[in-house]
């Protein structure tokens, strides 16, 4: 076989393997707080805001502090690096991406999910009559 072709195949295969490994590494798994305790790496936890618990913004550190209840019902304090996420109060659920450390979930990002907000719905059409 041609040396050039072998070289090309090796480069392609190596590139693909590197790509796949990278893909698997950067896909953040979904889990709950119990799993976060066990695995000690960044995961995504879906849950809802615990309204009764302390919820405030720490301007000194630039952190937003709140508590979240995961889908199994376990409540955990969350420290989000950044400001309060958009639509935080009206969100039906949220996904926090981060790591658990010493009983506190340190989130790098919290995505809020809202009841269908862009598509026109029946209640919206009634309002504009």
């Amino acid at each position, binding site marked *: 076989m041609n040396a050039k072709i072998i070289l090309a195949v090796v480069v392609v295969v190596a590139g693909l393997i590197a790509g796949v490994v990278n*893909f698997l*590494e950067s896909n953040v798994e979904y889990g709950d707080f119990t799993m976060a305790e066990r695995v000690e790496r960044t995961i*995504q936890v879906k849950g809802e805001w615990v309204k009764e618990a302390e919820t405030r913004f720490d*301007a000194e550190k*630039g952190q937003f502090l709140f508590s979240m209840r995961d889908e199994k019902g376990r409540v955990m304090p969350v420290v989000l690096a950044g400001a309060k996420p958009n639509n935080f109060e009206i969100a039906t659920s949220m996904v926090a991406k981060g790591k658990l450390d010493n009983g506190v979930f340190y989130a790098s990002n919290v995505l809020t999910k809202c009841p269908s907000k*862009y598509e026109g719905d029946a209640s919206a059409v009634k309002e*504009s009559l």
Partner: protein
Amino acid sequence: MIGGIVVKVAFLAALAAAFFYYRVHREQSERWLVAARGSFHLAVISLMIASAILLSFILTHQFQYTYVWNYSSTDLPLPLLIATFYAGQEGSFMLWALFTAIIGVFLMVYASKKAYEPEVMSVYSLILSILLLMLVVKNPFEYVWNTFPNDLIHSGPVPAGVTNYIILDAARSVWAQFPVEGRGLNPLLQNYWMVIHPPILFVGFSAMAVPYAHAVAGLMKRDYHSWIRVATPWSVFGAMALGFGIILGGYWAYETLGWGGYWAWDPVENSSLIPWLLCLAAIHTTLTQRKSGAFVRTNFTLSILAFLTVLYSTFLTRSGVLGDTSVHSFVDPGMWVYWLLLGCIALFASLGFGMLFYRMREMPKIPVEHSIVSREFALFLGAFALSFVAIFVIIGTSSPIITTIFKGVASAVEINYYVKTTLPLGIAITFLSGIGQLLWWKHSKTGSLLKSMALPTVLALGTTALVLIMLGTDEFLILVFTFCSAFSLFANLQVGYKIFRGNPKFVGGSIAHVGIALMCLGFVTSERYDDSLTVALERGKTVEALGYRMTYVGYHPYEREKYAFTIEVEREGVKRTVAPTMYYSEFTKGIMRHPDLINFFTKDFYVAPLSLEEGGRAPEETFELLQGEEQAVGSLHVRFVDFDFSNVQQGAMLEGKDFTIGVDIVVREGTRTTPLKLLMKNTPQGPEFVPSRYTTGDQSTYQLAIARLMPDREDKSKSKVELTVRLPQTSEQKGETLLVEASLKPYINLVWVGTVTLVIGFLLTIIHRVEEARLKHDRWTPQ
């Protein structure tokens, strides 16, 4: 009603054009040519009429149409009102189809001169008809009462006072009410970028269909070489429009949406990047085929793929499959559009690749004759690397689909994935775009190559050293990327200068490469050497951050309920102000935040607002006191002495006149005692408590006020008063605080200068390639 019919006419006419053009091709006779051209023109005119109707509905606020109601409102200024034409799915498909149709009119004239009309136009008409089919299914002319029949259609007499109704069936007295105001445009889209960015991007999307049509036409005609000469100007045009659109979108995200940067590897951004990369790869490999005849299959494959990825990207961002995994919200358009888009991909993939496999055996096999040290090989590797970037971006963007299949839960990849996979490929691409220009076709002599490499290498090393010294070190690969980008810049400047002195017509390629190299250098300096910091700005207090003295001086409203937060920024005596904005949007039910920036020659100072924290209030204590009782509060003791009714005129209380009741108290601080009188004014509006202040020996101020009076008429000793005491402000409590993210983006202007240079390079190349394609303009004649 009429709009929907016109769209259907356009669809059928485009389908007929595809059919008639195919007959012209099959029969090799002009018999069907008039019908084919007529059908295509009918499709174009119908679509233009449909677009004009939709636009007039928008401009005259016909909210009885769901699309108009859903995306526009009466309070929008004219440019934004026009832009609502393509704010939703139906309208953006319409714009895409409209551009495809208009380009088709020019393509028809062009192709007829190149003897390519029947084949190119039959494929192109088919593409147009599929886009129109999308509009037939997702009709922008739907009545709002057909969308919400349960809520809007009523029967019986119309109630008095209702004027916004239409009688649907007079005999059975069925009528429908329609909205008088639209829902309006998403505030994120309410700026001038919305007016220019989507149209440019859609021109690029539409143009990608042309190289595809030429590739399939080449296969139909068994013409495996000259289709390239005909298609190239269009490929370059598509690459220019799409590339410019992508960067404009990036600038929009940076300047207005406040993403913090111009590129976030978001699905919507990626989806236009993928076809762009493949189109660039195709432009480069076709160069080789023109010289040596090699890469016949590669060129067919890449030209077909560039268009298929436009369709796949549309599927990703329009079908709802990405769900909640992105900052963009993807509306689920329903099963019809989902399957139609998938079917559309399958149709054009099987048409393109089916034809390719069918003709594969008879294609000429041109042996590879060039050496490793040749321009052909550099072009091949460069196109290979570009395609690989495209593949990695496709995989990353499709992550929610892939993970759904294998794990059952959709999840997106981290941005890091894209950086890791594209950085090594970016190094290869920038290096090759420099070295490729220095190499000769077929074979280069090592001596002459090294000689021409000398100057760019030295200058690139100098640039890398400069970046290292001025901006500090970063990871090794970034330095390599910096070197390669600088090498490409200087190599292309050197080559471009020589070409310009020889034949200026050929200089477009070098200029485009200079643009890309400048952009890559800008990517490194602005994204890798940026600095950012979350800063809490207490009103009136100066904070130093990133070498700038920032003072938040207050906010003011603009455009009704939006607020601009003014921050004075000072450095070395020069004072500027930035005013990022925040407001609550009823439309998105959330806070909208827009950054502001100062554009310096060497950097941007970028301020993104995060939130406004109300000033912290001093703690308060409220307690009840019996007459004569004393209570400790802070460092004071407060004793309730007696009520003072001396200011109450006889009968005032009963007659409802104003009156004032006093409460005498004694404040004791250590051994010092001070009598104080607290007042409650009773007014028709209700009681008003007038506070009194007490300043201690160490200058801290307490504020005391009545909260409630509870006199006991029978037993005066049981009379009680409730007091509220506000304790002194301590240093921990802050005033109103604005929280911002401040960042420095060094040499970000390189990205914008590079973009303009790139577009100029593309324009020069188009002019050159159009002239070149004109050399053989034999009008199509039946053979």
